């Protein structure tokens, strides 16, 4: 019943995008941490988390994402998120994730804004 994530990294200029396939739950922790470490190995200063359309995100997944946000804050990296449904945009706003990560409608608008 444990879900797995496949996370591919794509570099778009100064932005490293993490394409996160699968639901984001507490089981995502090792996958997201590894992807974040790989992005750091590429010298990422700006990260974009691209969540799969229709992905389920629960409080365990929110906790994992907050751990990543804390690390990016310590490492002075910019982090943004895209691919969220309206419901999860609302949830991320409720829990305060939007104080630390801007949310964009789509990948193109995120990369354009982050590259500016």
């Amino acid at each position, binding site marked *: *019943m*444990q879900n797995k994530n496949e996370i591919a990294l794509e570099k778009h200029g100064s932005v490293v995008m993490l394409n996160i396939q699968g639901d984001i739950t507490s089981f995502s922790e090792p996958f997201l941490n590894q992807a974040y470490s790989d992005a750091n190995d590429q010298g990422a200063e700006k990260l974009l988390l691209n969540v799969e359309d229709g992905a389920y995100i629960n*409080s365990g997944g*929110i906790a994992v994402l907050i751990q990543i946000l804390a690390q990016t804050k310590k490492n002075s990296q910019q982090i943004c998120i895209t691919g969220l449904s309206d419901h999860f945009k609302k*949830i991320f706003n409720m829990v305060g994730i939007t104080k630390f990560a801007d949310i964009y409608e789509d990948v193109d608008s995120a990369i354009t804004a982050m590259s500016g």
Partner: protein
Amino acid sequence: MACTFFLDWRSSVSIRKVIKVLEDRISIKMPENQADSSVEIILANQIGYERLAMACSASFAKMFGFSKDRIEDLKTIVAEAAINAMQHGNKGRRDAKVRVSLGYSDGTIRVRVTDEGEGIGVKPPNPNISKIIEEDGAICGFGLFLIEQLADQVEYRKNAHKGHVVEMALRMKA
């Protein structure tokens, strides 16, 4: 109308496939007397099974004409209450069960999530993300926080027979 699902299989079938089948195939007939309508789902105490309760609750709410936004709210509160029941109430015991019951009346869905534990004791404070990120604070309490933000009414109490129950009400319009 009462309808009970017992979900406790051990197959390796993809949970996404199961959910898709449930969401596509679950069809609950509109009862003649809506006040008597209820559904109960008994879940194995295993993280991931909350998604089955989410699928059932979504079908239930759709039957009564709830909007897509409110159905998403319902799915989240059902999932978070079930996860809390599995992790904190039943303390991860594999032989324990979580019962999720849904009832509808007067434009409101009432959800009861029952575990076999002792209850939440002292409710944790609302999570403070700034403190977590800037001061390495503990990451906890997000499940209860989401339930209380999204539901119109929440109560925690001991079950009359055994265990602990979280009762939540969600109105058709927020």
